[in-house]
C-alpha cells in the first residue's frame, strides 16, 4: 500500500497541488503575486522551508511526541519548529541575498503562518508517510506552490493592462483567475494516487 516517493513528488505538483486543490497558502499567494520576481523568491523560500520543516517535524513527531505520548501537543510543537526555521531562514537571507530580503519584506516572517507549510506537516501525519515520502511530498508541494504563484504573477502582469470592473479589481479577479487555474488542474486529478 506504499506509493513511490517519485510519484508522490509529481502528484504533489500537479494532481494534488497544495494550493489549487487543497486551498492552502492563499494569503501570501494573493498578496505577493503582483510581481513575478518576488513571487519566484517567495516560492523558493517556501519550498526550502517546507522541505526542512516537514523533515524536522516528521522526526520530532515519531521520535519525541509519539514515544512520550505527547501527540496532542503536535500543533504547538509543529508551529514552533516552523517559526524557528523561518527565523533561521530570515537571518540567512538577510546575510547572503539582502536584495531578496528587502523585496519580500514582511512576507518573509509571514511564511511562519503559511497554511501550506503547516498543512503539509498535518497531511504527512494523517497519511502516515515514511520519511522519504515526506521529503518527496514536501518538495513537490513547495514546487507546486511556486508554480501556482508564478503562473498567477504572470497572469496578473497581463491583467494590469486590461479593463477589469472596479468591484472585481485586485482580489476579485485574482480569485477568479485562481479558480480557472484550479479548474484546469482538476484535469490532472486521478492520474496518480497520493496514498
Amino acid at each position, binding site marked *: 500500500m506504499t506509493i513511490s516517493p517519485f510519484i508522490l513528488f509529481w502528484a504533489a505538483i500537479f494532481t494534488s497541488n497544495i494550493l489549487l486543490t487543497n486551498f492552502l497558502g492563499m494569503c501570501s499567494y494573493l498578496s505577493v503575486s503582483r510581481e513575478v520576481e518576488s513571487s519566484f523568491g517567495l516560492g523558493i523560500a517556501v519550498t526550502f522551508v517546507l522541505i526542512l520543516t516537514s523533515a524536522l517535524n516528521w522526526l520530532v513527531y515519531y521520535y519525541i511526541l509519539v514515544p512520550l505520548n505527547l501527540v496532542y501537543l503536535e500543533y504547538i510543537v509543529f508551529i514552533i519548529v516552523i517559526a524557528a526555521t523561518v527565523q533561521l531562514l530570515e537571518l540567512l537571507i538577510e546575510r547572503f541575498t539582502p536584495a531578496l530580503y528587502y523585496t519580500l519584506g514582511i512576507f518573509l516572517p509571514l511564511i511562519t503562518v503559511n497554511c501550506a507549510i503547516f498543512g503539509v506537516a498535518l497531511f504527512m501525519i494523517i497519511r502516515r508517510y515514511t520519511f522519504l515520502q515526506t521529503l518527496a511530498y514536501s518538495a513537490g508541494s513547495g514546487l507546486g506552490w511556486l508554480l501556482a504563484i508564478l503562473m498567477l504573477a504572470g497572469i496578473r502582469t497581463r491583467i494590469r493592462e486590461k479593463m477589469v470592473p472596479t468591484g472585481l479589481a485586485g482580489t476579485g479577479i485574482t480569485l477568479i483567475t485562481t479558480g480557472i487555474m484550479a479548474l484546469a488542474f482538476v484535469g490532472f486529478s486521478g492520474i496518480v*494516487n497520493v496514498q
Partner: protein
Amino acid sequence: MPQNHSFLEGRLYPILFMLALTVVFVGILAGYYRSSEGRIETNRQETFQLQILSLFADTLSQRTGLPLARISDPKNLSDYYSLYIHKAAANLAAGSSISSDYYLCLAGKDTLGYAYNLTGSGLWGTMRGLLAVTPDLSRIINFTIYEQMETPGLGARVEENWFRSQFTHQPLLLHDSIPQFTLIPENAEPARLKIRQITGASITSGSVLTMLRQAAGELAILHKDNLR
C-alpha cells in the same frame, strides 16, 4: 513602576515569561486531554462495535425475531454485542489487506456469518471497511466503509447508505472464483455485479472495488486452506 521597567525589557524576563506561559498552557492541555482520552477511545470502540452489529442486524432480526430497531439501538449495544458477536483471530500472510482479527455472528450454536476488517487506499488516504459474509463466503451480507479521508461531498459519499447497500446480497466467492464488479453511472439501473459509482468520484469508487476484490482474493485462499 520605574524599577521594573528595566526588568521587563531585560534578557531574563522574556525567558521566564515564555516558560511560565508554556507551563500554564501545556498543563491545561494535558489536563483536558487526559480527562478526555478515555472517552475518545470509548467512542471509537463503541462506534466500531455498533457498526459490526449493524452489519448483521437484518440477519439477526430474521433469526431471533427481535425487531431491527432494537438491535441497532446504541443503548442496547453492550448487551447484544456480547451476546451475538465474537472475536477470533485468523492466520493470515503478512501484508494482508484483511486484519487478522475477525468477527463471528453467532446465534446459539449457529454461525450466521463472518465480518472482516479490510484496508485499502483511497485517493487521499487509507480506507477501512467492514465486510460481512455468509458462513460459506458465497454472498455478501453487508458492507460498509468506516474510515476514509476522501473529499467531503465527493469520495466521502462512499459512507452513504445508497452506496453501501448496493453490496448487500451481491455474490462474493462462487466456486472459488472472485466476482468482477464494474462501475456504472450513478443514475443507472442497479444490477448484479454492477455498482453505481459516485458522480465525480470515480477514483474513490474504484478504490472501494479494488479493496473488495483484494479481500475476496485473500478470502478465497483462506477458504481453500480451511477446506484442506
